[in-house]
């Protein structure tokens, strides 16, 4: 893909857009995969004060290289605190100290409910997916949830096969009532970043396209979403990655192109 003189991939645009959305946030729970590179990019650009929390038990990581997994030894050396998982999930996440939980998904619906468990029937699955890991509790207890995933008809679906992590349930009104009555600390999903654009949630709790990435089209967006997606009246154009953002991804964070192919 081209933008002015610079070329970049859809994955690079997605990672950059997700990183930028972290501006102003203090404490972020880092998930495996794309969230990992996006959060590490944010720490080097828009959110240098961001405290990285890894579910493996790390608060305030300062990884010297891009962690290969969420349990890489580089997230431990030089961190502020390393604690047991009962403390990480109990004293940090469930206590309400996490501003942003960053999730990926196999399926998402218009209300931001997420499936990472199975495609098909639970007892006789067509495809067995990884399951919750910490996602279910992150969705409930992090102050807000960012989702990062590629768009496709298989992933952006009208009805998910299994609800692993609650989003806005059947809509904002229901979700807000249940969160309030149940004493949830989280306010649910706030941003969905894909390879085509950036979505936020409207008053009804439904995803709405707010910004279209360079090179992406509304047709491409509609073709890869299994419901009639809402488009913001003042749809923005996502600024392309800067030279510095691309340099950080390509030279420092992912020189082997694992995430950005």
């Amino acid at each position, binding site marked *: 893909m081209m933008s002015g003189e610079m070329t970049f991939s859809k994955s690079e645009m997605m990672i950059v857009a997700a990183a930028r959305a972290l501006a102003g946030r203090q404490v972020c729970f880092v998930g495996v995969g794309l969230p990992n590179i996006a959060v590490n990019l944010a720490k080097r650009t828009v959110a240098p004060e961001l405290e990285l929390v890894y579910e493996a038990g790390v608060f305030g990581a300062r990884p010297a290289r891009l962690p290969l997994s969420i*349990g890489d*030894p580089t997230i431990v050396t030089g961190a502020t605190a*390393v604690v047991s*998982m009962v403390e990480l999930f109990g004293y940090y996440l469930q206590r309400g100290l996490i501003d942003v939980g960053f999730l990926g998904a196999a399926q998402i619906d218009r209300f931001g409910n997420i499936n990472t468990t199975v495609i098909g029937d639970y007892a006789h699955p067509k495809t067995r997916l990884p399951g919750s*890991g910490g996602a279910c509790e992150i969705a409930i207890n992090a102050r807000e949830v960012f989702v990062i995933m590629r768009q496709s008809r298989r992933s952006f679906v009208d009805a998910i096969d*299994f609800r692993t992590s609650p989003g806005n349930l059947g809509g904002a009104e229901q979700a807000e009532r249940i969160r309030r009555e149940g004493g949830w600390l989280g306010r649910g999903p706030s941003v969905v970043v894909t390879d085509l654009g950036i979505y936020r949630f409207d008053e009804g709790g439904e995803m709405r396209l707010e910004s279209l990435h360079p090179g992406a089209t509304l047709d491409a967006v509609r073709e890869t979403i299994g419901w009639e997606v809402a488009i913001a009246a003042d749809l923005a154009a996502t600024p392309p990655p800067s030279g510095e953002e691309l340099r950080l991804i390509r030279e420092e964070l992912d020189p082997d192109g694992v995430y950005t192919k």
Partner: protein
Amino acid sequence: MTTSKVASMRDAVRDLVRDGDTVAIEGFTHLISFAAGHEIIRQRKRELTLARLTPDLVYDQMIAAGVARKLIFSWLGNPGVGGLGAIRRRVEGELPDQPLELEEYSHFGMVGRYTAGAMNLPFFPLRSYFETDLPVANPLIRPIASPYGDGTIYAVPPLRPDVTIVHAQRASAGGDTQVWGLLGCQKEAAFAAERVIVVVEELVDEAVIRADPNRTIIPGLIVDAVVVEPWGAHPSYVQGVYDRDNRFYLDWDPITRDEATTQAWLREWVYELDGRAAYLEKLGAERLASLRPSGSAPSGSVDYGAYR
């Protein structure tokens, strides 16, 4: 003074892991005892229930080898790489003569299960599972009302493994065990268990342990065997000693996609080797050397003070 619990891996697994047991090889990405997993395969243990937050490659290998009838877990994958083919084939019904029962939680749910086991509690309460399908899929996740009239949360039952196996940087011959870096839920899994096997990089004098008692995660009191097995966590890692062998995690992805290649790998790397020493020799000194940390990062020493 203390009786030595040092044993070979062969003896420890033979004496302490029994057919039908619930076995937890714990360690969250860090300190995963592949050495114990391989020995369990070699000894052809059967009908095990395997518990672990992230089954990882070690359980994919064990399940491919037919040691287990059931898996208790919270995240099923090859972290940062892909899927676990051997487990998936059995779950998705591709091998109907080798069924695998699943019992599924979230990470905090699994951690809570071990914690309830470690504390001898009938349940562990947590604010997970609201408005999800997990309690439907697993009826052991149950609602519990607060006795203070402020709502209902969820509970998970205690998990009490027959055997917990953990890898650690060091232990004394009596089993007092210290770990630094990620702690995962090894402490909880060990206290929850009936029997405990500790596998270590290094056997140290009790005085080394007693010099820094805050670093002890497991006391010898609950340990049944100490196995000295340097590199026993490969291809996972040991903080300060060796890095994750990411090449192996990547290599596993195509191997596990096919049952035949998986079984061939097991023959070559497990059944045809008589123990960890042969495995390390086969890996080669160069491969191992490449996994050493790029430098040292000392913790520094603190003073506990002598009080006589």
